[in-house]
């Protein structure tokens, strides 16, 4: 790999990569996202490799294992380029036929393409499948077209052009101006304007500053960051380097989970390849800007995704949060200015620089700009990753993209933000996807994990479940969080087992209030949110359990 020393050399390299690519050469793109792998796509990948070898087609047909395509429900998913024919629920037994019929014969195998469950209509092209067709896939759309283990694929799609533009055509102040004008808000859960955060870190006193990608994604049911980062690691990395340049940081950290081996591998490879090309390390693209990145891993506790706990982990200490009376942008890792954003926030940066803040802020609602990745899970026909403009109605997400509720059941609620989020009842799903609207409804958007609940779900049990989860995932340092969780969990367990008594709801509300006001960190102050939203919208269910010893959803067993 040659080292690139200027913006012109980057464009030269891009041209030579594109010149080597034959757009008509068949390519088999096989989804190697977590779900497709779990459904057996590892075997499908080997079957394709084996079959191509057997038929001596290795030179004539490309094969790539890609990141998540999004339509997890119907995985394992395989796309044949250049025609972009998408086969779903593929098994190793289908492989010889796909090669003979489609790759060589250019014919579509009807049995393996998408069939509309309502009309029976068949759709062959991936981008024409209704699930994909109406999305706005600015961030994740390139994943099927990229081999995440090869930086050249990212460069071929125009990668690192935004970095070159920022380094050579813009001052850090100008980059910051664009991010602020774009009104990019943090995708990790807070919705805090990224530009203001960058500015605080940039203006904070100190020579040494840090930038962090939070790829912890600990909320159960959240998997869009993993999908995006695994499938297109350079997109996130490019955003991070631009951020570092803007803030004046020479050292970055990526904090992710240890239990995602493919993600870890892809990140390590991306860092190594970027370094070899001179896109990372000393004197990036000959600009004089130096920046390095280290990877740190969480080994299994939810609280370490909280920014100050995460920073303690990077220091090698126990992941206990610190109060943020002095912001982490001013005093973070080793008490130095530290800017932390999540995966999706960083991934938005290159396109804002490439296409400008005006373009970016034309997408979305007045105060929530751009698109949002949503991971759909629970009682929904199409679980998977969806990318839609902010402002899309929740109803469209559930019914148009999600395909509605399976088994003829009714929608009861959607729950955002996992154990720190809240539920929205079916009656309110005409509301738009928007940071502030959802917060007003009592359910913060969280990282974008949308759990769909059908009529058989008992909200008392779900509230209990989240607290049970938190009882083992909080650090246990401060009294309101540790003891508040303990007591709320006890009361809810009693209610769900028919031992609830008069006054329990009021006691829960008292506890929730104190925990939300007095806990040390943002995790602690959010632990009661799911319960409060459920008490707000489903209070009668709690009352039925207590007064009538009855579970309206017929879920709770009473002894």
């Amino acid at each position, binding site marked *: 790999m040659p080292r690139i020393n200027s913006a012109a050399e980057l464009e030269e390299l891009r041209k030579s990569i594109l010149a080597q690519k034959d757009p008509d050469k068949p390519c088999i793109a096989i989804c190697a996202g977590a*779900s497709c792998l779990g459904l057996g796509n590892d075997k499908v990948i080997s079957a394709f490799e084996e079959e191509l070898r057997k038929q001596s087609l290795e030179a004539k047909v490309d094969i790539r294992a890609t990141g998540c395509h999004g339509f997890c429900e119907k995985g394992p998913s395989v796309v044949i380029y250049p025609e972009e024919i998408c086969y779903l629920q593929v098994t190793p037994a289908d492989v010889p036929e796909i090669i003979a019929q489609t790759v060589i014969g250019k014919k579509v195998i009807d049995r393996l393409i998408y069939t509309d469950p309502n009309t029976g209509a068949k759709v062959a092209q991936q981008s024409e499948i209704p699930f994909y067709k109406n999305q706005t896939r600015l961030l994740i759309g390139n994943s099927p077209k990229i081999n995440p283990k090869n930086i050249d694929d990212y460069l071929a799609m125009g990668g690192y052009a935004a970095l070159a533009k920022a380094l050579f055509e813009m001052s850090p102040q100008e980059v910051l101006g664009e991010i602020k004008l774009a009104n990019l808000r943090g995708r990790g859960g807070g919705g805090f304007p990224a530009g203001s955060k960058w500015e605080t870190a940039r203006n904070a006193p100190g020579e040494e500053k840090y930038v962090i990608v939070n790829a912890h994604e600990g909320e159960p049911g959240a998997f869009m960051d993993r999908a995006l980062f695994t499938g297109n690691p350079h997109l996130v990395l490019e955003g991070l380097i631009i951020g570092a340049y803007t803030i004046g940081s020479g050292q970055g950290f990526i904090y992710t989970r240890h239990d995602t081996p493919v993600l870890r591998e892809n990140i390590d490879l991306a860092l190594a390849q970027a370094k070899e090309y001179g896109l990372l390390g000393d004197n990036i693209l000959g600009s004089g800007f130096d920046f390095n990145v280290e990877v740190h*891993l969480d080994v299994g506790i939810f609280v370490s995704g909280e920014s100050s706990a995460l920073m303690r982990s990077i220091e090698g200490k126990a992941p206990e949060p610190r109060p943020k009376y002095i912001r982490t942008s001013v005093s973070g890792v080793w008490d130095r200015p530290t800017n932390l954003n999540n995966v999706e926030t960083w991934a938005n940066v290159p396109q804002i620089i490439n296409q400008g803040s005006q373009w970016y802020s034309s997408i979305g609602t007045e105060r929530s700009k751009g698109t949002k990745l949503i991971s759909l899970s629970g009682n929904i026909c199409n679980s998977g990753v969806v990318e839609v403009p902010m402002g899309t109605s929740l109803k469209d997400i559930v019914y148009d993209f999600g395909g509605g509720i399976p088994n003829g059941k009714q929608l009861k609620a959607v729950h955002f933000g996992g154990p720190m989020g809240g539920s929205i009842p079916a009656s309110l799903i005409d509301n738009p996807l928007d940071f502030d609207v959802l917060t007003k409804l009592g359910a913060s958007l969280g990282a974008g994990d949308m*759990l769909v609940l059908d009529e058989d779900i008992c909200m008392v049990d779900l509230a209990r479940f989240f607290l049970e989860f938190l009882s083992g995932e909080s650090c246990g340092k401060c009294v309101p969080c540790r003891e508040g969780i303990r007591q709320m969990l006890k009361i809810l367990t009693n209610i769900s087992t028919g031992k609830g008594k008069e006054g329990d709801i009021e006691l829960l509300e008292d506890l929730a209030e104190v925990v939300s006001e007095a806990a040390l960190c943002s995790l602690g102050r959010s632990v009661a949110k799911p319960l409060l939203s459920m008490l707000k919208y489903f209070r009668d269910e709690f009352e039925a359990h207590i007064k009538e010893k009855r579970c309206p959803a017929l879920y709770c067993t009473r002894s």
Partner: protein
Amino acid sequence: MKGDTPGALGLRLWGRGMSPTYARADSSGLGERRRSRQKAMNSDKIDQIINTHQGQASSLIQVLMEIQEVNHWLPREVLEKVSEQLEVPLSRVLRIATIYKTFSLTPKGRHEVHICTGTACKVRGAQRVLDKVQNLTGIKPGETDMDDKFSLETVNCQGCCTLGPMMQIDGKTHSRMSPAEIADALKKYE
């Protein structure tokens, strides 16, 4: 009454060089037998990991993770060695080793059964799967059976919610499990 406190239970077993987690799983003396069998741990590899990070206190979590990956549990003497070589107080090593779910202070069975109890798996029936596995193996999450065959753990969301309810045995994914399919899956392991 004092003897019943969680502290007491944990500490009795700390004293014997074991962990509280282990204590809750097993107080029958079985631990001694299992520990002696586990003597044949991968000492060279462990030394190698520790040596590459000598004196680097900030590498503590990384070192413990690498040891956990090759050895599947963290023996007491290894924790002491880590404390010495990385120049971190043993108290901090123990703190880190007990706060993260991935670290095990007790030996594992030959096969590790992980059941996802994330929200999506829960609403799709993870509890029924867990009940069934508990029934068939006779162990609860955090425990290892008498024959050292299975260790059972619940795990947080693995990010493949469409597969729920989901179970992994030795890393192999079994997706959309019905309780009936579980017995067949477990039978395949010796």
